[in-house]
């Protein structure tokens, strides 16, 4: 009951004119930053951090600047879906999974349905996550502490397992794609030994590793456009979307089909989000994998399933609230964006850590209140802007293709300020195009490069510490996760055996 009173007080403070104004401003800025290919919540928050000192100067406390940045964070999480759907380039790394089905939907002239599903799923994800945060923050902080290296690795294994089926029936090609992604993720300096690995010809640019966004923009920006050009021979394949009240209502109604993905995404997103190592990108990919795997109609995914848009979007918003939890209660950021927020909190004079909730209730509750408010504003603003974003889709193909190329180049440069990464992105784009020509699935490679850098050190740290593989089975949390993951990995093989066995039985019965 105490919690509800505190929350209510917090919401009232968040609704004060200045705080409310800041939330609206933050959401709108975040939405557009998120919608720009390459720029995500981390860029938005980092660019605007200096601005918060001005806000603090006016408000005199740390609450208002934090409300502003949290709103930018939210806005960007919503915005990431927009370019994933409308242009086919992920607006941010957190929205990569949204392109898997968002893009096909747009090509079928259902962009409005995809964007609406993304907005509503984001809202649902963030709301679920806010409620969990409000009710159980201190308790969940201890869950995060229980996740040591063996648990995190087991979770990564589970993520790989859910994606093993992502490439369709061609299991060997999927495995090849995963291994290729893992190899790419090993480029750069090794944390454990401190030695450089796979930095071909000692090229400087490889020493920081192949950045995820370079890969994502290359594959989904450049190679997607090459593929479309090749497939359509220059003819527009984009069906026009009619922007009308009726089509928007229709989109709203169609969201019914996405309740499963939304639910799965919300829950997975939150729990992956609160783990200090993970964050929103792995969360959204895992949510997509699980939703597809548990679906009766798994083949529809990647071809325009509404659930395939809802799941990652619910997950990345849910995870972004979840990631605030280790940041506030443990002082450890769960994602790059929360690392910047954490730095902000230190500068505003706060002490994030286990005592924040009891020592700084005047900061914590208005902030949590503002999560609810910002989320509400974000969904309204987002839906209001959908017609504008749909207009992007009406662009003639001859303008869209060069625009996507330019945005891919600019977006990559904007993210890292480094020409090497831009060239690498183009190279990856060409490579991705040839992979698709040869019918290799690219999504598993993308997953591997996100999860590889988390999975590899945790595996090696675990083995260093415990010197045995059995630890993954004997720890109370890691054990069940590992077993589930192994069953899932074996499932395609088992299914095949089952089919053979049945066919053989039917065969003998028939004769």
């Amino acid at each position, binding site marked *: 009951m105490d919690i509800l009173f505190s929350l209510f007080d917090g919401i009232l403070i968040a609704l004060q004119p200045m705080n409310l104004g800041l939330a609206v401003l933050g959401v709108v800025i975040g939405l557009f930053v998120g919608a720009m290919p390459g720029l995500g919540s981390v860029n938005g928050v980092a660019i605007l951090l200096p601005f918060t000192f001005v806000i603090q100067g006016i408000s005199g406390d740390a609450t208002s600047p934090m409300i502003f940045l949290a709103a930018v964070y939210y806005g960007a999480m919503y915005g990431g879906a927009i370019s994933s759907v409308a242009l086919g380039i992920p607006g941010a790394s957190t929205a990569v999974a949204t392109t898997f089905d968002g893009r096909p939907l747009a090509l079928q002239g259902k962009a409005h349905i995809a964007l609406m599903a993304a907005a509503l799923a984001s809202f649902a994800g963030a709301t679920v996550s806010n409620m969990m945060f409000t009710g159980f923050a201190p308790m969940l902080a201890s869950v995060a502490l229980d996740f040591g290296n063996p648990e995190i690795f087991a979770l990564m294994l589970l993520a790989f397992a859910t994606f093993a089926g992502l490439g369709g029936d061609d299991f060997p090609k999927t495995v090849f794609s995963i291994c290729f992604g893992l190899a790419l993720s090993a480029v750069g300096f090794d*944390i454990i030994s401190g030695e450089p690995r796979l930095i071909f010809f000692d090229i400087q640019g490889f020493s920081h590793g192949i950045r995820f966004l370079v890969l994502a923009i290359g594959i989904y920006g450049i190679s997607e456009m090459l593929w479309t050009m090749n497939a359509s021979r220059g003819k527009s394949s984009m069906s026009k979307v009619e922007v009308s009240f009726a089509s928007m209502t229709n989109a709203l109604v169609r969201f019914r089909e996405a309740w499963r993905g939304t639910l799965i995404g919300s829950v997975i997103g939150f729990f992956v989000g609160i783990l200090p190592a993970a964050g929103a990108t792995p969360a959204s990919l895992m949510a997509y994998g699980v939703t597809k795997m548990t679906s009766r109609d798994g083949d529809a995914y990647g071809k325009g399933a509404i659930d395939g848009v809802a799941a990652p979007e619910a997950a990345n918003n849910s995870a972004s609230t979840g990631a605030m939890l280790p940041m506030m209660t443990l002082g450890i950021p769960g994602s790059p964006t929360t690392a910047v927020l954490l730095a902000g909190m230190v500068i505003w004079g706060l002490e994030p850590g286990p005592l924040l909730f009891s020592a700084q209730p005047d900061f914590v509750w208005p902030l949590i209140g503002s999560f609810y408010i910002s989320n509400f504003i974000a969904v309204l603003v987002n839906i209001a802007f959908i017609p504008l974003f749909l207009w992007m889709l009406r662009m003639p193909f001859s303008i869209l293709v060069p625009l996507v190329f330019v945005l891919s180049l600019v977006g990559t440069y904007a993210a890292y300020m480094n020409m090497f990464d831009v060239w690498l992105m183009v190279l990856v784009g060409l490579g991705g195009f040839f992979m698709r020509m040869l019918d290799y699935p690219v999504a598993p490679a993308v997953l591997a490069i996100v999860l590889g850098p988390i999975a590899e050190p945790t595996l090696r740290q675990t083995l260093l510490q415990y010197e045995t593989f059995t630890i993954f089975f004997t720890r109370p949390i890691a054990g069940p996760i590992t077993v589930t993951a192994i069953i899932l990995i074996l499932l395609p093989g088992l299914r095949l055996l089952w089919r053979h066995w049945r066919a053989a039985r039917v065969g003998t019965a028939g004769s």
Partner: protein
Amino acid sequence: MKALRKLMTSALVLGCATVVVASPAIAWQPNKPIDFIIMAGKGGGADKMARLMQGIVEKESLAGRPLVPVNKSGGSGAEALMAAKGANDPDHTIMVTLNSFYTTPLRQPGLEVDVLTFAPVARMAEDTFLLWVHADTGITTFEQWLDVAREQGSKWVMGGTGSNSEDNIITDFLNTNYSLSMKYIPYKGGGAVAKDVAGKQINSSVNNPSEAIGFWQSGDMVPLVAFTNERLPMFPEVPTLREKGGEFSYFMQRSVVGAPGMSEEARAYYTELFTKVYNSEDWQAYKSKKSLMGDLMSGDQLSDYWRNQRDNHEQILRSSGAIR
């Protein structure tokens, strides 16, 4: 978007205005955003400190151009060193460094990095180290810790940031001088190490105060001994290793360095900039709150300090067998 553009425009105008107004007085001014390389991952002690410096520069509008922080944590700082060494524009590239500034070039001669080629901008502080365990272990003194760690042998796990780093050096020292055989597990950042001590995933750590302070206040983590010359004001009841008879203290520099090839004019500009940061109220408050020691140092004095530290570390690493 409009607001963002407005903000950027006003920042630009402000930036230009500063350059125009200040140009007669100071010879060198940055004319584009300054690359601010952080030699550590996000969320660790070095990262928080770097972002605080950036925050102070922004808050008090000390620089005409923004500092753009970039984390380069790979390879115990090797990634950051290589980036600074190969900087296209050394006058606009500065870096926040730790002790890996000395140890990494020593361990990896292949990098061909000579720390004395870096421009000595400012040493902002020296961070301190304490030995930490979880409160539930019941260990309250260094002697008790020695007994338990010795008994557990290689089952006693010490976590630390990176391999052959500060944390590893202290662990090696304890292992050699107190006949322990603790296992050392390298992590990506000090925050993750502290979290795993608090979560009882590992047995002990030698975290900086800034990394462990939250868990100390909540009663999860307990400091046993400080690797300093005198007791820390924040932990008056925690003895130093020297009091316990150990001839060892160890500090971590928190210095801002300029990329090799930086002009003397630019170096002077940054030294002045960071002197202002050092003297700011926020920095001083942070220094005492996070139990940091060490006074401001710059120019030749800082170069000499680096030379000493490098020779020192060469000896430490040679005796531990990390280098031949």
